[in-house]
């Protein structure tokens, strides 16, 4: 049913730290590797070694230059499904293929019901859904629903593949509906934000903005080299005479 649940027991989601993300794409490849054999498999690639390579990915990392009066910096920006509280991608679905789970708030697609009308991808402001032209159905991030509840994995591995892969711990997974969870405390401490809050989709995932520029940091640059040539006066005359 594409009507939204009035309440979800948990609000599972990601917290992404734009301060520490280095744009290494490890989360992107880990996501692709897990999910091409996971719940929404396959993540089809079209012409993977040709000139018009295309394919389905659930997670994409952009790079931006953010310039303010404090200066400019490069910000790496992972973009994936935000598992919104009021996702229009679910309510526009004519078949009931798209749904939001009442237990944990994860937004999923039942591939067997999807007719491939693509309307859900139009309704998502974030570009989280990608159409699989080979299978003819829509695909999206599952929050690794087949990892986080998977008893066959060690407990520390029961997190989304992107979170497990991140070498700088820029990705955090947890229940954002619990104000005392580690992720909720992190969001409160770092001033985590919603993307496009004006759209009113109430995304579950939060982004931690880069920390402010500081002028108090210790200088790590090497001291300037001394000038070899004496400038003017007697020593300069001696230098020039000896150089001849």
């Amino acid at each position: 049913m594409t009507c939204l649940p009035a309440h979800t027991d948990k609000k599972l989601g990601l917290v992404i730290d734009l301060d520490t993300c280095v744009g290494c794409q490890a989360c992107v490849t880990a996501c692709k590797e897990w999910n091409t054999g996971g719940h929404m498999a396959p993540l089809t690639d079209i012409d993977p070694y040709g000139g018009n390579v295309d394919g389905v990915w659930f997670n994409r990392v952009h790079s931006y230059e953010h310039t303010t009066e404090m200066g400019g910096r490069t910000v790496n920006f992972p973009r994936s499904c935000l598992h919104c509280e009021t996702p229009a991608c679910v309510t526009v679905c004519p078949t009931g293929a798209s749904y939001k789970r009442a237990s944990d708030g994860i937004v999923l697609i039942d591939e067997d019901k999807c007719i491939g009308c693509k309307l859900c991808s139009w309704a998502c402001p974030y570009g989280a859904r990608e159409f699989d032209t080979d299978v003819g159905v829509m695909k999206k991030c599952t929050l690794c629903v087949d990892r986080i509840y998977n008893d066959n994995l060690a407990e520390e591995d029961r997190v989304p593949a992107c979170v497990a892969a991140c070498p700088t711990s820029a990705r955090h997974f947890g229940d954002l509906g619990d104000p005392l969870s580690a992720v909720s405390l992190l969001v409160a401490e770092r001033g985590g934000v919603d993307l496009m809050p004006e759209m009113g989709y109430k995304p579950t995932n939060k982004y931690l903005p880069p920390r402010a520029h500081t002028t108090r940091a210790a200088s790590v640059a090497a001291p300037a080299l001394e000038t070899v040539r004496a400038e003017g006066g007697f020593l300069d005359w001696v230098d020039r005479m000896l150089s001849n």
Partner: protein
Amino acid sequence: MHPAFSVVFFTTATGAGYGLLALLGVLAGQGFIPPDFWLGLVGMGLALGLIAAGLLSSAGHLGRPERAWRAFSQWRSSWLSREGVASVATFIPAGLFGIGWVFFGRTDGWVAIAGVLSAVGAVVTVCTTGMIYASLKPIAQWHSRHTLPAYLIFSAMTGSVILNALLRGFGLGSTMLLASSLLLILLGWGWKLATWHYNDALEIPTNANTATGLAGGTVRSLEWPHTEENYLLKEMGFRIARKHSVRLRQITQVLAFALPVMLLVAAFALPWPFAAVVSALAAIAQFAGMLVERWLFFAEAKHTVTLYYGR
């Protein structure tokens, strides 16, 4: 947005078909159009043919058309599902109306009731089509007060111009219908100009800053996540028609509005066979013009996902 021809044709053809169906249902049922066999066959055949061709074309847009029947289930939340239900439900009174008119040679009594119900179904279906687009928040050019009235006005306009051509062809020209068609074209023209004016001045609160959560200053795309165009850019980052939009807007205005106005004015003055020919030309030119208009409706619509790509 990518203007897929299947969807451009679908909205244009069903719009004209439902407009024609609504007018036939009301006007024939109320005795303004005689229950002539050939007129009923051609008129209802044209209306239902346009609707059926449009709906089949929309199924061609689907990745898995064999599952299309599932789209009737989610009418509680989805405008697309409501459209599916309304379009199929409208076939019931429309079928009865067509059978009564063509096979029983009557448009009164129960046939008239079926005609009115067909008209109601047609209006509801066109509303649901308009709402599919008007309900999409990420596309500001569609999520506006102009979208739903546009679908209704253009449906009535194309339907009445086709009906006028049909009646002129059967030598049943009505000055009132001709005048109504002219007024509807002028209304449609004005509405389209107002919509373009509104869209050109549109300022939305969503920008690269709110899209990335990076407050203040400027956010410039340095590098995409991929080297080639992906689904998002092919489907929602379509830009080809935008650079030709001035020329295409002129073509729309000439074919869909200006030329039909001139031809219908000529139909006022000309005797039977010539009035029928210019009326038919007006309907054909307008249908072609509306295809260009609908192409622009998609091509000029900008989705918020393009902000992530600096487009």
